[in-house]
């Protein structure tokens, strides 16, 4: 019974997906109303100051959008279990 209900929901989800694509991992379009201030604003402000990196107001949305995509993708591997002594790929030889 529960299995049948789940399957029905899946079909509904599939129909919705066909009807209207989800929008994910998309930097905001220029001119889109600025999103509410969030932790990415804090990061952009702090990093821009620390790096002496100018971020014009009209670029800010796209920079935040790209950071949001980056963090979303980083979530895929950030907690991937690896031992402390896992060696990073680039190996320096003296």
């Amino acid at each position, binding site marked *: 019974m529960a299995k049948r209900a789940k399957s029905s929901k899946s079909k509904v989800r599939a129909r919705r*997906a*066909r009807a209207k*694509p*989800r*929008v*994910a*991992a*998309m*930097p905001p379009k220029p001119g889109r109303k600025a999103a509410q201030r969030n932790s990415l604003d804090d*990061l*952009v402000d702090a*990093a*821009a100051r620390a*790096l*002496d*990196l*100018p*971020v*014009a107001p009209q*670029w800010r949305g*796209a*920079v*935040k*959008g*790209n*950071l949001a*995509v*980056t963090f979303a*993708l*980083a979530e*895929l*591997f*950030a907690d*991937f279990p*690896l031992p402390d002594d*896992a*060696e*990073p*790929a*680039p190996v320096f030889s003296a």
Partner: protein
Amino acid sequence: MDTAWAPASEIAAAVADGRTSASAVVRAALARIVADDPVLNAFTAVLEDRSLAKARAIDAARLAGRPLGALAGVPFAVKNLFDVAGLPTLAGSKINCERAPAMRDATLIERLEAHGAVLVGALNMGEYAYDFTGENVHYGPSRNPHDVARMTGGSSGGSGGAVAGGLVPLALGSDTNGSIRVPASLCGVFGLKPTYGRLSRAHTFPFVASLDHLGPLARSTRDLALAYDAMQGHDGDDPVCAPRPVEPVAAEIARGSEGLRIAIAGDYFRAGAFPEAQTALARVAAALGVTTEIELPEAKRARAAAYVITAAEGGALHLARLRTRAHDFDPAVRDRLIAGAMIPAALVTKAQKFRRWYREQVLALFAGVDAVLAPATPCTAPRIGQQTFVLDGVELPVRANLGLYTQPISFIGLPVVAVPVPLEPLPIGVQIIAAPWREDVALRVAYALEQSGAVAASRPSPERDKRARR
């Protein structure tokens, strides 16, 4: 001889036995560039005097009875991130116009010319190679010869367009996350991304040091092999270039795929592909009689890690320019680079640790197979200016996602040949992926497919070209 579509191998043979001259071949290439490049926009510099002088020297050498190289008289061009003596190395940017002209050629240009090839120009590309579209806000988009309203793919867009459009039989590009394989796929030509560290990157403008590769695009497997053989060998000017002996492959490719164990990449590489990508893969698999499917473990995470490393290293490379010249960047590139410069180091380090883990898992697969097939791009060439497409019901930016299937492969430096499947109305590529240092395997499979007729660089329709010019 129709040098607009003749393979490099046939041009070199004809020059060597006197059926034509290097000068005639190069003059014809220069004339095609004059005629067709105003539409294709593949070239950013044409080296008329230099190329004609080189061609005359080859013809003189033949008359004097001196031996000619395997690429004698073959015109070629390079993505404009290669140093070319006398030209500023643009790397697709406006900012680099102000660089002093290069004092010498990149190592790979020197090596091709040592085998008789003739450099005729420098090619358009996405700014600083951070691109999969072939579009460029400063120099205009390179245009796909199969439909000039469509993208070439990038960032080696001019390389794909120049070869597919019959301007030159051979071009060089760079591939950090797919920038040879994506334009090869969308333009319907062959592309070789060798093993990381195989070919010297010396005297070229970098993008992501830990991921950058260079390689050739051509209209046949044999031409890829000839160019690749000419360019092999250690180069002390590139610390990443491996101290390995030259391992020639041109004489090996005719062995074909006999005895090779080949599988199709499943899971991640099946998801999201448009019907044309699935058709192309099925056609290649059928031609090889391949039905086995294997999973490259954690390919989705691998692609994510490649994305983060790319953004961070790219941001770091351009930090000084972003501080002082941000307004002179392509806005689409600038905003990604600024964000990249702000990525916490902990994520980049984790990505590099994951990279080694992933490499070990994938290399273990090669104990059971010799080559793996995967789509090169999720779709045929999008229209120029198209911002998004829908993959698996999710709307995604084209610029960042055309390389969805190439990134998990270059992430661990595996050699790949992208082969063109001549579907109508537009071609699309399939990746043949081999174990590290086994370019010979990927090229043998590509050659077998070419012999079977399953893959070929299809010539753009003249009618379509005329329509585009009207």
